[in-house]
C-alpha cells in the first residue's frame, strides 16, 4: 500500500510538467496581452516595447516558459503584471473563501447525495425512488448559476432571509453552498443508488438475507460499504473541484475566491496570475483524484493486497 502510494506520488512529477506546459501555452496562445491593459490612451509604440521588455514579454515563448519554470521550481509563482503583487500572495488571500465554499458544498452534497442514494435504492421502484430519481435528473441538468440567481431572487430579494451577495458571515454561505452543491448531490445520489442496487443483486447479499439479518442492517453495514467504492472515486475527482469548481457561483454571488481571481486575470491577460491559478486548480484536481484512488484501494482488501 505504501509502495503504491509512493509510486503514484512519483507519477505526479511528469504530470506536473505536462500541466505546466499546457497552462503556459494555452494562455499565451489566446489573442490579446496584458500590455493592452496597462497602456494609457495615447501611449506610443515605444512605451509599449518598454513595458514588454520590463515583463520579459518581448522574448520568445520558449524562453519565457523556461524562465517561469525556473522560478516555479524555487517556489516563486511570479508577480501579477496588472496588480503588481506576488501571485502567491493573491492566491493565498483568495484561497480561504474558495475553500470555505468548496468544502461546505462538498460536505453538503456528499452527505445529502449518499442519503438520497441509499433511500432511493432501499425503496427501489416505489414513488420515493421515482421522486429521488426525478430530482437527480433535475439536479444534473439545472445550471448552477441559474439556480444561484433563482435562490437570490427568492431567499435574498423577496424573503430577505440571507444576504444577496458577498462573503460576510455564515448566512452568506447558505445560498452559494446550495447552488454549488446541487449538481454534486445529483451525481453522488445517482452513483450511490446504482452501486447499491447492483451490490444488492450479488450472491453474498442473498446469503446475508438468508442469515436473517434485518434488511436495513444489510443495506447499511454491507451494501453501502461496497457502494462507497465508486462514490469515493467520484469524491476524489470532486476534491479538486472544491477549489475551482464554483467559479460561476463566486461570480453570481460576487464572492471573492480563486474563481473570481482567475476570471479577472483571464480578462486582463494577466499571464503570471492566470498560470498560477490554473496550475493550482489543475494540481488540486490531480491530487484529489490521487487521494480518491488511494482511499479506494485502502477500502477494498483485494486491492490493498494486490497493490502492497
Amino acid at each position, binding site marked *: 500500500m505504501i509502495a503504491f502510494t509512493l509510486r503514484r506520488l512519483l507519477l505526479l512529477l511528469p504530470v506536473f510538467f505536462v500541466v505546466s506546459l499546457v497552462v503556459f501555452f494555452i494562455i499565451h496562445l489566446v489573442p490579446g496581452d496584458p500590455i493592452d491593459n496597462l497602456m494609457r490612451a495615447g501611449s506610443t509604440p515605444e512605451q509599449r516595447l518598454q513595458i514588454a521588455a520590463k515583463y520579459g514579454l518581448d522574448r520568445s515563448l520558449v524562453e519565457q516558459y523556461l524562465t517561469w519554470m525556473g522560478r516555479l521550481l524555487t517556489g516563486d509563482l511570479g508577480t501579477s503584471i496588472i496588480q503588481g503583487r506576488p501571485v502567491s500572495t493573491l492566491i493565498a488571500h483568495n484561497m480561504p473563501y474558495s475553500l470555505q465554499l468548496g468544502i461546505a458544498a462538498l460536505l453538503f452534497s456528499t452527505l445529502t447525495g449518499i442519503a438520497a442514494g441509499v433511500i432511493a435504492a432501499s425503496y427501489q421502484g416505489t414513488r420515493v425512488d421515482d421522486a429521488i430519481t426525478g430530482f437527480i435528473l433535475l439536479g444534473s441538468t439545472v445550471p448552477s448559476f441559474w439556480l444561484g440567481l433563482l435562490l437570490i431572487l427568492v431567499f435574498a430579494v423577496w424573503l430577505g432571509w440571507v444576504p444577496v451577495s458577498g462573503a460576510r458571515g455564515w448566512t452568506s454561505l447558505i445560498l452559494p453552498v446550495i447552488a454549488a452543491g446541487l449538481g454534486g448531490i445529483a451525481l453522488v445520489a445517482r452513483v450511490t443508488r446504482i452501486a447499491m442496487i447492483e451490490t444488492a443483486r450479488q450472491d453474498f447479499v*442473498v446469503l446475508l438475507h*438468508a*442469515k*436473517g439479518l*434485518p434488511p436495513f442492517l444489510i443495506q447499511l453495514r454491507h451494501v453501502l460499504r461496497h457502494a462507497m467504492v465508486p462514490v469515493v472515486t467520484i469524491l476524489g475527482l470532486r476534491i479538486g473541484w472544491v477549489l475551482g469548481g464554483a467559479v460561476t457561483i463566486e461570480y453570481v454571488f460576487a464572492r471573492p475566491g480563486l474563481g473570481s481571481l482567475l476570471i479577472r486575470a483571464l480578462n486582463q491577460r494577466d499571464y503570471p496570475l492566470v498560470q498560477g491559478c490554473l496550475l493550482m486548480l489543475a494540481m488540486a484536481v490531480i491530487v484529489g483524484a490521487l487521494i480518491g484512488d488511494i482511499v479506494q484501494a485502502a*477500502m*477494498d*482488501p483485494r486491492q490493498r493486497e494486490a497493490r502492497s
Partner: protein
Amino acid sequence: MLLTVDMLRIRFGAFSPVDQVTLGVDRGEILGVVGESGSGKSLTATAIMGLLPRIGGQVAGGSIRFDGTDLVDLPESQMRRLRGGRIALITQNPMTSLDPMMRIGPQIDQAARLHLGLGRSAARARSLDLMADLRIPDPASVYDLFPHQLSGGMKQRIVIAMALAGDPELLIADEPTTALDVTVQAQIVQILVDLVRQRGLGLILITHDMGVVAQACDRVAVMYCGRVVELARVDALFEHPRHPYTQALIRCIPRNGMARGTMTAIPGMVPTGMTQPPGCRFNPRCARVESRCRVDIPELLVGPSGNGVACHLAEAA
C-alpha cells in the same frame, strides 16, 4: 416430517415458473432435488427461505409447513427469526457468497449473535469450533483472513460454517458443489452427509448430479419444468424409475467401461420461459408420448409410501 412442501406454486407476475411442487424431508434425512437448469429447484429453495419477494416473486398457492408452522402466511418478522436460525441456506457459488470486504470470522459470527444471542467472544469461540468441525486447518488464523485469501473448497466450508452458526434444524444446500473441483466436491458432500448423520439435521440437497444423489441422498424429488415429476426413495428411484424423465436421466449417467462416444443425452431442450407445452411438460421430449399427454397435465400422485409420480403412463411402467 420436519418440512413438508405441498402443491407449491410460485408466481412472478402472470407467470408461474414453479407449480405443483410437493416434497418433504425429515430430521436426519437427506432429500435430493434433481433436475436440469431452470427446472425450478433454486426457486423452490428460495420460497422455503421466504426470500421470493426480494426477487419479485411470491407464493401463489400450496403450503410450506416447517415443524407444524405454515411459512407461507408467516409474517416477515417471524420468518426472519427462522431464517438463518432454524432454517439455513448454503449457496451455489462460494466464490461470490462471502462479503469480499469483511473478514471471514465475523461473517460466521453473525448468525450466532443474531439467533443465539451470543456476545462477540462467545460467537467467536463457537465459530472457531465450527470451523474445526468442518476440518478447516488453523481456524484461528483463517478467522482473520479475507475471503479472497481462501480456496474455493475452503470458502464453501466457510459458507457451511455460516449456515451452521445459527444452529439450524433444516439445511438447504443449493448445488453446493457445482462450482468446485471434482475432488473437493466429494469432500463437501461428505461433510454435509456427516452433519446430517451426527447432528440429526434435515438436508435438502439440490443438485443436477445423479452421482451425488446416489451417493448421499435418502429420498429424491425429480423436478422438470417447475414441477415435481417423481418422488421416491433413492434405491427405488435407481432400480425402478417410474417417470420417463427419471428413466432418461438415469440412462444419462456415465458408467465405468463405457465406450467412447456412447454418452447418452435426452433429446430436445428444456422449454424456456413462458412457452410451456400444453399437457405434460415433458411430452415433446418423451419417447413414450401418447395423445392424452399432449392435453392433460398429469397430477403428482403420492402413495402411502411417500413415493409418487406424475405421469399418465406410470401404472404401465
